């Protein structure tokens, strides 16, 4: 991993649809070199996946997202790892993080509607061993996701020329 690799990652994180040729031009590498580096980063598991940031509200999809906080009793020898990995396997869990503070694990869970989410929490998450407490927060509206603003911003006008 060198500076060029890091630059490729930053560029792809911002726009994963750019071609190897375009990226190569930006960081002074040939297309072939750039392709090889991207492939190596994929193979090494540094690049996990290429996705899109979608404003689902605009897309007319009424999915419900919620943040779920869990208090968990850690296991001897494993800490939080086993239970976290177990929870991660659920399709409904979009993100899962171990946190400092008043609770331990934080889940981002999505479902078709409120019932869907609450059924998932009450049937699958809450009864799981070692989970002491759950708190579910429904997301009302997203303003920013992964560094991207989801609201319209006015373009500021610029002069056609200035020195």
């Amino acid at each position: 991993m060198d500076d060029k690799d890091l630059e490729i990652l930053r560029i792809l994180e911002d726009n994963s649809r750019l071609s190897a040729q375009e990226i190569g031009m930006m960081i002074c590498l040939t297309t072939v070199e750039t392709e090889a580096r991207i492939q190596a980063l994929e193979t090494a598991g540094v690049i996990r996946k290429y996705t899109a940031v979608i404003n689902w509200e605009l897309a007319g999809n009424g999915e419900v997202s919620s943040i779920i906080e869990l208090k968990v009793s850690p296991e001897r020898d494993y800490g939080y790892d086993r239970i976290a990995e177990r929870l991660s396997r659920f399709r409904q869990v979009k993100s899962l993080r171990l946190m400092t503070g008043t609770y331990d694990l934080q889940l981002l869970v999505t479902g078709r509607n409120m019932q869907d989410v609450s059924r998932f929490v009450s049937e699958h998450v809450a009864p799981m061993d070692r989970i002491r407490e759950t708190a579910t927060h429904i997301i009302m509206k997203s303003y920013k996701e992964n560094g991207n603003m989801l609201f319209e911003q006015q373009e500021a006008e610029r002069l056609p020329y200035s020195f």
Partner: protein
Amino acid sequence: MRNFISERARTIPPSGIRKFFDLALSMEDVISLGVGEPDFRTPWNICESSIYSIEQGVTSYTPNKGLPALREALSNYLKQHYGLTYNADNEIIITSGVSEALDIAVRALVDPGDEILIAQPSYVSYAPCVTLAGGKPVPVECTESDKFRLNPDALLEKITRKTKALMINFPNNPTGAVMNRKDLEAIADIVIDKDLLLVTDEVYAELTYEGSHIAAATVSDLWERTITLNGFSKAYAMTGWRVGYLCAPKDLCETILKIHQYVMLCAPVMGQVGALEALRSAEEDKNNMVNEYRLRRNMFVAGLNRIGLSTHIPEGAFYAFPTVKGTGLSDTEFAERLLKEQRVAVVPGSVFGVGGESHLRCAYAVSRKQLNEALARMDIFLNSL
């Protein structure tokens, strides 16, 4: 009725591209590479702190030199980033942009008939500022074969008994040229030997893509005979805030301060508050913007060379300076036809003085998408010639 206009005001040329300006404004769908300012918004932390200060009633004059906290922060910043030593109490003046700093510096130096050397191509206001102060601007050409750096021999050639000062701007607008330490040492020898003063406009210092910026006042013994100008516009995307600064040894600074007191009183307080926040918390925003400019530069310059407009790689600022030699058109004809036929606005290089002719200044401070579209249109234009 008499003609009331002074001869000085009458004889300075109007800004070279007025007609382009009007033409571009009347057209739809123009991609403008003519703008010498960042396309980014000012980082929000800067805006937010300035808005808050207005809400708190911080709306009055500041000390003439500028807010003490800003000068203090700036003094530390200059030391850390460039190894420049300027005392916050008496060697720094906060100005309304570098434009004002340049004007008051020149006014403090020039007596009637004094010659002021200007490394050109240069920013458009240098020569008129000298003329308005009663001096004689003398261009020193920086040529493409020297990568648009100031050549010591070319400098020597222009020095006369009347020469008082040299004005330089690196990283350069419009060429993107940068002077390294060795280049500056050669110039320093001459400036010291001929007992000249150096005015160095380093507003693009942060936009240096290879290595780090060398502040002229840190080279040889130049400090005692240098006025350093810089500002927040380019590095922090703060053009409209009008905050620049001037640094000079105490005695010189005191004299310049008199002029600043009379013509400007102080720089706008909300701008100064924003500038202070920029120094405190916008380092990462700045680095992100600079990195983006670097990516665009690489992409855009490669693109210009690919479509047949030969372009050296600019080491600083955010301008590419391709040559139009070989197209059969002058820079002005090229720029005018490109605007009319393909709706891409660029600035003819001759606007920037000697050495600029046959070149175009293309600012790559626009989105990558627009740069690609501009390249495509320029390609069509070139093929139509």
